[in-house]
């Protein structure tokens, strides 16, 4: 479903990925863990074309994004490819990024109406059922600044779901939430795992990662240090780095 092959990425002169490869199969739930600055966000952004990369390629359902230093890179194609990829790939951000000038329901229906060309009535009835799924049907006509952080993040999830994506990328969805709101968001994400959507989630919630994921990737300094089932990575890590990193969380659990 997602094939990342020999990815090279550097910011200015600062190298991050030096030939990173990763395959994600359909329906899998991949947790990406690792210390701050290890490249989790960058990796997710490369997947949906928010960040361009120098070398290698990323293939999603047959749509291929090439690094812009590759010979096969073609600027005209990239726009179309990115457009197609974004129709399949949704994203939820750490900072929610709801549109502050629109009500909750308009936030959700905006892209279905204007990108997919769905009728307003249909988009709204879809939005209604999505809002029920994230337990916010009461708040449809509120503005984002009238919601709590947890509520805003649940709206953001509904907004991404409204595009009926095959893949959803979560970039630390609970990191800017107050502790008492984290669970309500995590439980909504957990429910999504039953819908057959492929999920890639960068997170610091180790318990949650262990609980819901089918695969765990431990990233450090742009390298995949460990990749396996949650059991393998959490209970029997191979590398020293993973052990030290995880040991910090074990105490908390």
């Amino acid at each position, binding site marked *: 479903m997602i094939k990342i092959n020999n990815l090279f990425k550097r910011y200015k002169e600062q190298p991050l990925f030096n030939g990173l490869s990763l395959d994600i199969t359909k329906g899998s739930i991949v947790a990406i863990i690792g210390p701050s600055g290890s490249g989790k966000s960058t990796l997710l952004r490369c997947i949906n074309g*928010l960040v361009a990369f120098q070398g290698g390629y990323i293939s999603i359902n047959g749509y291929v994004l090439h690094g812009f230093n590759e010979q096969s890179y073609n600027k005209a194609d990239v726009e179309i490819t990115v457009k197609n990829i974004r129709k399949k790939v949704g994203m939820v951000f750490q900072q929610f*990024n709801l549109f502050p*000038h629109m009500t909750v329901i308009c936030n959700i229906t905006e892209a279905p109406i204007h*990108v*997919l060309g769905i009728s307003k009535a249909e988009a709204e009835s879809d939005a209604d059922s999505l809002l029920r799924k994230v337990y916010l049907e009461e708040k449809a006509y509120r503005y984002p*600044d009238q919601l709590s952080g947890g509520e805003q993040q649940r709206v*953001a999830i509904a907004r*991404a779901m409204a595009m009926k994506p095959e893949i959803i990328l979560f970039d630390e969805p609970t990191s800017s939430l107050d502790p008492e709101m984290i669970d309500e968001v995590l439980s909504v994400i957990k429910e999504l795992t039953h819908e057959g959507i492929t999920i890639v989630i960068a997170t610091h919630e180790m318990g949650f990662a262990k609980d819901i994921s089918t695969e765990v990737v431990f990233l450090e300094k742009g390298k995949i240090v460990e990749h396996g089932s949650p059991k393998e990575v959490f209970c029997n890590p191979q590398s020293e780095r993973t052990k030290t990193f995880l040991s910090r969380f074990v105490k908390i659990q």
Partner: protein
Amino acid sequence: MKYKVFLIGIILLLQMFILLIPASFKNALAYQDTLEKIKNTGVLTWGFDAEGGAPYVFQDPKNPSKLIGFEVELVYAIARELGVKVQHFQNSWDSILLSLQRGDFDIALNGIEITPDRKQSVLFTRPYYVYTEQIVIRAFENRINSLDDLHGKKVGTLYNTVAKRMLDEMGDVNVSTYSGQVEPFKDLLLSRIDAVFVDFPIASYYAASNPQLRFIGQPVGEGYYGIAVRQEDNALAEKLNKIIEKLARDGELKEIYKRWGLWGSLQEKLFLHEGLLQRYAEMPPSISDRVPITITTFLPTLLKGALVTIGISILSMMLAVALGLFLTITRLYGNKWLQKISTAYIEIYRGTPLLIQLYILYYGLPNIGITLSAFAAAILGLGMNYAAYEAEIYRAGIEAIPKGQTEAAQSLGMSRRLTLKRIILPQALRVAIPPMTNDFIALFKDSSLVSVIAMVELTKSYSILAAASMNFFQLGIITALLYFGMSYPLSLYARRLEKKLRHNDQNK
């Protein structure tokens, strides 16, 4: 409540202002007798307006630092007779008598017609020139043969002149008033107006040699130019009278006028027969006395001017808002060339005076074949200038939107165009509304600048009325209050909006 406090403040300020006036007035008039002063200092200070133009006083085209004209030669002849030097004092013609009264110079000599109302505020010498009014039309014009044919036509003339007053008294003439002498003839050639009606010397200088223009009709409205001095300067006036008489008698005046093509039977009548000189000086001019300016006559004029001001402001702001948006978008999202062009546009328009831009639009563009009406030039000029400022406001607004907004929109598959239209601009415009309102207030006041291109809006209405009535003070206060009454509500509105937006931000 706040409004009341404000008004009381204004009234107190005005009262202080009024109390201060007499004091400063006396200071300016330190010398009791101006003739004495001229003799003691050896300097005759002469007030004129070189912008008024040829053939009176104007810059020598071959040597712009030098002034030439028949009045320059006359003043130098007078100074020679007085045995003193001439000091120049450039003063706007509209306020030349006011400056004379204030004591800025000793004499005002610049085609000033002797009229009864002017006689009430200054003292005139005997006439030094007999003028008539002349109709000038395009060479192939055949609808106009006399003064009567000007009814219903668009006629150009100069501010605060007898010619203007004659046209006004005809009632249904569509009068365009100018402050420079060149402009009416330019507009006549461009068919913006049908005829020009001005004092003969002006017509003679600008139109007589132009094959595209011709004179029509009998000379009408005979009147006299005199030298104006302050009311109390009887001695100076006496002395000047003697000098004019001498210059007339020994033929020097005739020489000067001949050189400028101004000598004719009329001047002959005035200067060559003994005794006549005195009689003409006492005769009232042929123009009927004007109605005095009272609140019933000036208020409608000012209100009409205010309406024009409002219309110009609104239309040019609409242009500025739309063009500004276009500039911002091309600057931020256009290709390299569009970006460069918009940036250059913004920098050039912000870095040059609006006044120059207006002159170029109205008087400069016809040189390359584009002739705009005054109204169109006013709106384009103001709108294009303010567009540069609006563009900067929008840019600041757009740049204030967090990057996450664009990323969220893009991750939902929205194109750049759609993101801009649906997500970025609506938020940026909300941020931009208070500064835009402030700009609108500024534009509203800047609209007074369009009076330079023959638009009679509020400020111009004021300056015409004030120059005609010499009542700069009260009319000025009333005009200022009109401006204030229109801009203050906008100000309040802008402040309320700002508060509201800040409040919204705090709620987040």
